[in-house]
């Protein structure tokens, strides 16, 4: 297995994963979306809300705010060893919010009981309070899984495609393929059509060029064991940590399976 990182920032990454099977690439993708636990607000005790939005909608907005998650110090509530799912400091964080209008209430106005756990983005508008309107609430955040609700989904727009392979032989430089390519990556030179190394990755394997070519000089295929991944994180983890945690989840599952098989 080889990983070639093309782009890496705090919130997004693009990399080529090669010498693996489709099943493995897909399990990484699925683990990033649904199996890496994150913190998100699950309950809200609303003491006062005279704003224009209903309590329910307010709770929904709060739940969708990504919280920076520390996977080492929190455990998913359903399998909490300390409380068994009832709620305790090992599996929950409380965030309180009290605000009075006029003015916009932002996610940074929430005060967390654990200074490490903060909203990933401070400038998410929660509600616009007018003069005399008030908001007092306490929100409880849990660790949960993306498969149960989007609010716990850390991976955003995670996807992959196979590495494209384009071979050009005996080209007569007619230029039809170049004008048809929706990505505009084919260039016509005197010797025929060419695609540069870094442009090849942009190919979406649509095969329009192949269809346009009257002499079948251009052939498009893909590498079945190399994958171009693009992924983003909602901010609960950095993009790097999210991929690593996804890999750990898969490893943990495989070990669990081995353990079960050993006991049989």
């Amino acid at each position, binding site marked *: 297995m080889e990983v070639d990182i093309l782009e890496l920032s705090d919130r997004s990454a693009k990399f080529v994963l090669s010498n693996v099977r489709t099943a493995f690439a897909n399990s990484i993708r699925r683990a990033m979306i649904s199996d890496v636990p994150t913190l998100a607000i699950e309950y809200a005790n609303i003491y006062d809300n*005279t*704003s*224009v*939005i209903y309590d329910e909608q307010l709770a929904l*907005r709060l739940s*969708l*705010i*990504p919280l920076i998650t520390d996977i080492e110090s929190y455990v998913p509530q359903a399998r909490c060893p300390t409380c068994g799912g009832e709620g305790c400091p090992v599996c929950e964080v409380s965030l309180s919010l009290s605000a009075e209008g006029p003015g*916009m209430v932002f996610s940074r106005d929430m005060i967390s009981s654990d200074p490490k756990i903060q909203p*990933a*983005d401070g*400038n*998410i*508008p*929660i*509600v*616009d309070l*007018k003069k005399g*309107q008030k908001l007092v609430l306490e929100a409880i955040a849990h660790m949960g899984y993306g498969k149960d609700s*989007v609010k716990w*989904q850390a991976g*955003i*727009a995670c996807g992959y495609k196979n590495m494209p392979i384009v071979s050009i032989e005996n080209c007569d430089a007619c230029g039809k393929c170049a004008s048809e390519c929706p990505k505009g990556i084919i260039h016509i030179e005197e010797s025929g059509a060419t695609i540069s190394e870094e442009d090849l990755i942009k190919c979406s394997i649509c095969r329009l060029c192949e269809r346009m070519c009257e002499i079948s000089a251009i052939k498009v295929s893909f590498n079945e064991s190399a994958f171009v991944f693009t992924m*983003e994180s*909602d*901010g609960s983890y950095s993009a790097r940590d999210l991929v690593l945690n996804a890999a750990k989840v898969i490893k943990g599952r495989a070990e669990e399976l081995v353990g079960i098989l050993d006991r049989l």
Partner: protein
Amino acid sequence: MIPVRCFSCGKVVSNYWVDYKKRVEAGENPAAVMDDLGITRYCCRRMLLSHVELVDVLSPYQ
């Protein structure tokens, strides 16, 4: 209020709203503002582009 996340992909889009609104009201092209803010997918772009802010309309009736 602007939805917190994009309905389709889940990216947080509401944190761009205040900035986006200010710049578009100042006369900038919405497409250029979104390109600049790094909102690349069309699912996220429609969230900002098609949003109608109703807070000011509704607030007198609370």
